[in-house]
């Protein structure tokens, strides 16, 4: 069958079931109730502190076929997933589903557990490095489910991703299960992605290397949700958890794109008091913030809030008064941690608050502008951020599709050529974010406006921006680089790409070896 953007889906996907075809960004009308979490009680004298992961496995008990969930706030410094799975392997447990909000190169050990049958299913929003490559090469018999950050929260809360045990890597905990992300050697800032897991999992285990005196303050995840606290020697490597400082790009082409994106925002009439903004931590995205800031300074504009993954650059804008608030689901650097710890205008929010489509209002809905990247974008403005030029998985939506759907204006910034490869193609290999939620593409050689936005087109033309048809930009790139031959894939589905509402926007098929 084909979904509404023409992507070919199998009628039944082995190991996944019947896909609900994507039918439009705002078409899904949920007719269900939320998953009711298990009701629990403990005796007033009961202790939650457990000496080892092994003891937790035995007390719960964790058995074959369960779903274990993890958050990715420790990014490439995470030590918890590997320690938990090593424990599972040592106890001879098989057929686990790992629901890890993002997979990083540090999780390479997963591959061995997949091969030995300890882990047989993976549910994630983003994956890079060796695991992504192994999945692309077919290491798992069942396809990986790739969700958006908002979609994962939705799936957990609506009972589509039931979690047996949530292992929450906690930078700081007290012995009664209060947790925060801002103290201890593995401080990571916001714990936003772990909130749905803590609320809805049958069992919640905090894993920490820093136990503070009761009661912990501040509290991000409260004691009433946490069953066990395990102290390990090391929960994570701070060098992999936070980057030192995030810097704007020095690449002249990147700067040109960023400057043009800032002009697009201004031409769209959005740069005024109360402006709200999301951008990534990448060099070009951050450069857009830099140019926006210059204009805000010149025009004495005070924005409302900046959202998303928070970097030191955004913290500086908060502290200098360019934005009144930061809404933070994930912090990227030491400055973001310092700020969320000390500044009441720097808010920690859950993945649900940030981006779930199935609640009565998530934060992305309040965005004026989001600036996003793309691996590929096609002439219908559909964006791929899942697979690379070799067809191998190298990312995932994360918040991409969520923010694109919510923002008034969604801007994709990209070099016209990445290496030799044109960024604009006839049809993206893997659709991640639907074109109906993308408004403008900004490249170094011109700006293309989605034909569904005639008013925006008029505004950009009136501002004298170099507006071109997306087809013309594509032809321009092909004239320089030549027309690339299309990648061929096999029929075997290695990943199912769910849109934020749970419908299937595309599948990733295994590439020929």
């Amino acid at each position, binding site marked *: 069958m084909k979904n509404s953007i023409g992507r070919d889906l199998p009628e039944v996907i082995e190991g996944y079931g019947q896909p609900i075809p994507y039918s439009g960004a705002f078409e899904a009308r949920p007719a269900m109730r939320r998953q009711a979490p298990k009701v629990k009680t403990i005796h007033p004298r009961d202790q939650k502190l457990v000496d080892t992961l092994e003891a937790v496995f035995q007390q719960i008990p964790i058995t074959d076929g369960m779903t274990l969930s993890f958050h990715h706030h420790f990014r490439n410094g995470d030590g918890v997933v590997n320690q938990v799975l090593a424990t599972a392997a040592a106890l001879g447990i098989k057929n686990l589903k790992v629901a890890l909000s993002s997979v990083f190169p540090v999780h390479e050990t997963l591959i061995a557990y997949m091969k030995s049958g300890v882990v047989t299913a993976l549910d994630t929003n983003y994956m890079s490095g060796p695991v992504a490559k192994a999945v692309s090469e077919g290491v798992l018999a069942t396809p990986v489910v790739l969700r958006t950050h908002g979609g994962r929260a939705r799936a957990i809360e609506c009972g589509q991703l039931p979690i047996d045990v949530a292992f929450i890597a906690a930078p700081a905990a007290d012995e009664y299960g209060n947790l925060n992300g801002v103290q201890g050697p593995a401080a990571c800032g916001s714990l936003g992605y772990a909130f749905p897991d803590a609320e809805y999992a049958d069992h919640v285990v905090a894993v920490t290397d820093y136990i503070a005196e009761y009661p912990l303050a501040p509290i991000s995840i409260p004691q009433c949700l946490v069953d066990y606290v395990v102290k390990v020697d090391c929960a994570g490597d701070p060098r992999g958890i936070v980057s030192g400082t995030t810097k704007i790009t020095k690449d002249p082409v990147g700067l040109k794109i960023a400057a043009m994106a800032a002009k697009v925002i201004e031409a769209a009439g959005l740069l005024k008091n109360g402006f709200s903004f999301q951008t990534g931590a990448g060099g070009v995205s951050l450069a857009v913030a830099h140019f926006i800031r210059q204009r805000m300074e010149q025009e004495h504009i005070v924005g409302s809030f900046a959202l998303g993954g928070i970097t030191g650059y955004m913290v500086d804008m908060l502290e200098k008064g360019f934005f009144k608030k930061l809404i933070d689901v994930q912090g990227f650097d030491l400055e973001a941690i310092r700020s969320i710890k000390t500044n009441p205008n720097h808010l920690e929010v859950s993945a649900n608050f940030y981006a779930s489509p199935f609640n009565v209002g998530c934060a992305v809905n309040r965005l004026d502008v989001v600036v996003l990247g793309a691996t590929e974008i096609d002439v219908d403005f559909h964006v791929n951020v899942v697979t690379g*030029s*070799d*067809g191998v998985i190298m990312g995932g939506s994360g918040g991409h599709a969520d923010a694109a759907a919510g923002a008034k204006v969604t801007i994709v910034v990209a070099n016209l050529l990445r*290496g*030799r*490869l044109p960024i604009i193609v006839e049809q993206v290999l893997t659709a991640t974010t639907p074109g109906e939620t993308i408004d403008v593409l900004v490249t170094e050689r011109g700006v293309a406006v989605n034909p569904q936005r005639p008013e925006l087109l008029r505004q950009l033309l009136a501002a004298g921006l170099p507006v071109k048809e997306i087809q013309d930009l594509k032809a321009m790139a092909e004239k*320089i*680089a*030549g027309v*690339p*031959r299309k*990648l061929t894939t096999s029929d075997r589905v290695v990943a199912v790409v769910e849109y934020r509402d749970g419908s299937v926007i595309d599948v990733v098929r295994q590439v020929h070896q």
Partner: protein
Amino acid sequence: MSEAGKRTVGQAGTLESNDVMITVSPGEEGSGISIELTSIVKEQYGDAIQKTVQDVVGEEKCRDIYITVVDRGALDCTIRARLLTALLRAGVVQKKEVI
């Protein structure tokens, strides 16, 4: 064509992104043209790169050489320039013929 005795191994280019490193080794009389290609965009542009290399070799009327192409996403004009320079350094073509 230069004298066969002056022919040696010639190399041009780098392994930077958007560049290509080409090594030309003169072979025995009658060994023909061999091209060994590795490229980060082999799926998309492998055939195009092969054709460009063959075109240049044909235009320069080269014979009996082994060409190693390590491509990092170079454009056609870069591949041509690097190959011509490698051929020049190998003594396979003469400077005046290139410019």
